[in-house]
């Protein structure tokens, strides 16, 4: 009896364990997401409250009388204890309400929906640029380690990494927009195209295609290409250096020697076998680089008059517009968490051992 019962329990355990395991895994992931978010919010909230900036002055202005100032102070709930303020804030966040931005007089969620697609569009094009050029350059540098190709790529990457983006952006504008006229100027579109495309995704490249407005699409391309190339140049430098170092490690492995001994072509050895094994750490590198760009690049956005998340967050921070800062922080936090999960998922796609 005992034996039979034991076998049944074992069977039940065996039968349900993958499901249980998955559920447990999912719960752990969810809990860690919530804990990370709450922690992130708490730290941002605390920094916002101890910052030597007066959020009330940001609203009422320098000339406000004491009565006007006090009324705004109370309406912000600043008279309540910190922990109560944080509780109220958390409650709002988890119901999707970040409150009204003090600077734009609109719901923060509306603001983020408006500015984030601009950043997403720019960061995505930049990342495509960075990956398309960065990965092959890294591979070439590794294959030709120490030779002129390697040095040239190193120099090219170093230049991108060490030049201030402010200067590079202005020079880029001056040459490609001011002198050569190859690209559009600052802004996402020529002003005459503003508001002509119905907003669906908020990304003009996508929305103009959906609306069948090819002129506007090309105009948007001409505006995005320069800032995206510049940002892409930065991620290119990083991605190519990391690819090179991952590749160098792989190229000394025994399986590479085996592949060569088997008579595989050099192309197959490098691009299929070595690069294939580099993909896992490379995905993390690319995801991190993408996440950094998605936070918004303030200087690029300022120079190119690109109304994205970086500019929005910085203006909000400097003006103590805490609702906007918190809203932005949640979005940035979610991006990092999302991209981490996505790269975990990609590991499993690329590498069966991780499944």
């Amino acid at each position, binding site marked *: 009896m005992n034996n039979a019962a034991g076998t049944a329990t074992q069977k039940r355990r065996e039968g349900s364990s993958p499901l249980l395991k998955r559920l447990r895994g999912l719960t752990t992931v969810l809990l860690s997401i919530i804990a990370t978010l709450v922690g992130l919010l708490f730290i941002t909230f605390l920094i916002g409250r101890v910052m030597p900036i007066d959020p009330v002055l940001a609203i009422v202005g320098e000339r406000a009388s004491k009565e*006007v100032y006090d009324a705004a102070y109370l309406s912000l709930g600043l008279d309540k204890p910190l922990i109560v303020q944080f509780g109220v804030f958390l409650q709002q966040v988890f119901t999707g309400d970040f409150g009204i931005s003090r600077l734009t007089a609109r719901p923060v969620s509306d603001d983020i929906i408006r500015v984030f697609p601009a950043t997403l569009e720019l960061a995505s094009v930049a990342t495509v640029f960075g990956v398309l050029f960065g990965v092959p350059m890294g591979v070439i540098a590794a294959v030709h380690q120490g030779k002129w190709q390697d040095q040239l790529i190193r120099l090219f990457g170093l230049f991108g990494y060490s030049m201030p983006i402010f200067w590079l952006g202005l020079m880029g504008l001056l040459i490609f927009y001011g002198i050569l006229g190859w690209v559009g*100027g600052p802004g996402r579109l020529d002003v005459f195209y503003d508001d002509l495309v119905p907003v669906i995704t908020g990304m003009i490249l996508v929305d103009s295609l959906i609306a069948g407005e090819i002129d506007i699409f090309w105009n948007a391309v001409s505006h995005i290409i320069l800032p995206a190339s510049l940002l892409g140049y930065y991620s290119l430098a990083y991605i190519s250096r990391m690819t090179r170092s991952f590749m160098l490690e792989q190229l000394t492995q025994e399986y590479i020697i085996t592949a060569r001994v088997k008579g595989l072509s050099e192309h197959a050895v490098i691009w299929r076998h070595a690069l294939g094994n580099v993909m896992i750490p490379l995905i993390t590198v690319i995801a991190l680089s993408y996440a950094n760009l998605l936070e918004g690049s303030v200087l690029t956005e300022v120079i190119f008059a690109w109304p994205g998340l970086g500019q929005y967050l910085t203006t909000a921070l400097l003006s103590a517009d805490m609702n906007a800062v918190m809203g932005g922080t949640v979005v940035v936090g979610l991006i990092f968490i999302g991209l981490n999960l996505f790269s975990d998922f990609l590991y499993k796609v690329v590498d069966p051992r991780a499944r």
Partner: protein
Amino acid sequence: MKIQNWLKGLVLATAISVPAWSAPPSFAATPDDILVVANRIDDIISLDPQEMFEFAGTDYANNVYDSLVSFDPKDLSKGYEPSLAESWTISEDGKTFTFTIREGVKFHSGNDLTAHDAEFSLRRAVGLNKTPSFILTQFGFTPDNMESTIKATDDRTLVVVTDKKYAPSFVLNCFTSAISYIVDSKEVKSHEKDGDWGNEWLRTNSAGSGAYSLVSWKPNESYTLNANPDYWRAKPAMKRVIVRHIQESATQRLLLEKGDVDVARNLSPEDIAGISGNSDLAVDEDLRGRIMYISMNQKDPILSKPQVIEALKYLVDYKGMEGAFLKGQWKVHQAFLPLTYMGELKDQPFSFDVEKAKGLLSEAGYPDGFDVEIIVRDAQERVEIAQSLQNTFAQAGINVSLIQGTGKQILGKYRARDFQIYLGAWGPDYPDPHTNADTFASNPDNADEAQHLGKLAWRNAWAIPELTAMTEAAVQETDNAKRAQMYVDIQKEHQKVSPFAEMFQKNEQTGRRANVSGFVTGSAVTAVYYWTVTK
């Protein structure tokens, strides 16, 4: 070999894609009936005229709304003149103003503009009690008495009763400011929520009768206006005005040079110099209302000594700064009223004189100087001025530490009277001399508890019963010539004894395409006009 092939492919792809990037059509210049302006507009917090108090916001409102009394953009020096009120009378006791409203004016919605709209708008300003409300409530209007003090007696007559007699020029000048702009009461009332006077709606929408109506506003990005073809003054030549937020001066310059914008409003001295030789472009100059000054906290035992105050005024290199890094953006000016205001004072009694300053410091008992802190916002030109002061003060042995911070940080210290020397700028709130006299030369109660935060004299803990009385008398003087002289006298006394060293007045340099004319930036008294622009 394979990699080389791949490289070839890459080069080819790049070569093919470059013309593709440059393929899109681009306008060589803006169309003849569209005005595109590059400006910093990130200070716009609200589009509600009874709430806004920032420069870019007022520029917007000046074109979308009208007031009872306003200026002639073609000759701002004439002072106030009839606008939506075609005439007015003032009672013998000087307290009752009866305005006759212009006939036939319509709002953008098509509604007729009547005295009831004016009544609603002025009451709204009082009832909302936002920051600029004091411009009207200083005449004694309160939410409790406004139904009797601000009253439309019929469609064309508005009667306003002040709590006491004021100089008529003072009252009428205040009626030119944004807080007094007339909104479409039917439209705004229809969007009222929980007794908010339609504020939530009007913060992002418009309900005016001005030369332009709002098409769209994207915060920190742009706003677009469409011409009102039925505008009662004139039909605007520019059918559309687009104002884009461009933060960087260099970017504004590039856009202007390429002809993608018609006007660039925030060019740095370097960029102004850079475009000066370009025959396609022109630069306009206009003296604005902002005054750059330093002030000394009178709670400080050293800085409250009259000789120290005077010495510091001789340790400012006014001309040196103007000629060096300020390069035409600020002009030397040593009185608290901006030039072009009633009662302006052009005297410049102070110049950079280290020996004189040293003598005064010795008299005060500080022959070897002292240590002092200057608080300043981290804006480039202010920091440069502060560094110049640090250098010139050192020549008399005064060792300056610069405390930099964001605008809000520095302002917080200033308002809390927690500083030694403050370096900053002040712009008038409305186009009447009382605005600056009331803040620089009036302090009815110097106690900490009095919290006269709007008064700079209080922020600097400067007790001045005599000057306060003089300022109070000037605001009640009905004779304009006498009144102007009173402000000259107040400023002369202020120059002599105050802990304020006024240094410069803002000179705005605007870059524009040479084919654009009639772009009026509003001088010290008002804001930008777009309806006067032609190409």
